[in-house]
């Protein structure tokens, strides 16, 4: 199964890289862009066909390594359909 895990900074956590990108977009004339937050995407291939089991395992993967839950949230999407978010 294919899964896409997104890891993003929690709201309220300062994102200097996002701010720099936002500033660059403004200088390119995209005045309508009011906020940019930078995150990470992991495309993960996982064995088996049980979506619930895969989702549970990926949640453990996020908690164990992919996200630092002090400052980051993660979202899991399996096979292009909606998955769990935390």
């Amino acid at each position, binding site marked *: 199964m294919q899964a896409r895990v997104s890891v993003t900074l929690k709201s309220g*956590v*300062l994102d*200097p*890289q996002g701010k*720099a990108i936002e500033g660059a977009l403004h200088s390119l004339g995209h005045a309508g862009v009011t906020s940019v937050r930078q995150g990470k995407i992991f495309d993960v291939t996982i064995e088996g066909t049980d979506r619930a089991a895969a989702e549970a395992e990926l949640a453990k993967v996020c908690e164990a*390594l*992919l996200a*630092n839950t*002090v*400052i980051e949230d993660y979202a899991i999407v399996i096979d292009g359909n909606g998955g769990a978010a935390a």
Partner: protein
Amino acid sequence: MKAAIVVFPGVNRDRDVARALRLASGAEPASVWHTETSLPDGTDLAVLPGGFSYGDYLRCGAIAARSPVMDAVRAHAARGGRVLAICNGFQVACEAGLLPGVLMRNADLHFVCRIQHLSVERADTPFTRAYAPGQVIAVPVAHGEGNYAADEDTIARLEGAGRVAFRYCGPEGDPAHGTSPNGSRNHIAGILSERLNVLGMMPHPENAVEALAGGEDGKGLFDSLMG
């Protein structure tokens, strides 16, 4: 004092800290590879040195924090053993749960490499007793992710319990605006664990132990550990 320096792939200040320990104690510290599952018998001090473990992939310190040797370091700390975590080591210690919070990207996005003044906030810990309280020392900083952040409760707990070991400041000890190299919360440069046996700090005291090479203000930390 028996010291063991944990070596992860990509660290580069392990020999600097070995030299600082050797100068202070006359004894050669052990090097422990990250795949080991124990520290040498009788280890008093475990050191997580500076550098770029695993190329800073994923998040600084994240992968090193999950390496086999870190279970032994956590057990050592739980027994009350001392842990000195410098720069990338501080990031590893936070990721490993030895210290609270996280080191984020410097607020201005620049890698900062310079001599920085610090105020010694506590001089009654195993790491700082050779200093005077409030003493201002000058040591190098060299990092891109030293912006200490934690939730409000954690910051309040750290401040309330006097667990801030060092703060960035100006030459006179003032934590004035503009002296912070990274935007760190409350100008925090180093913090202690609840039992004061783990110190994490972004600056490099190990690179300020000889007058010929940039000053001796870091020496007090290593002298403290020998006491």
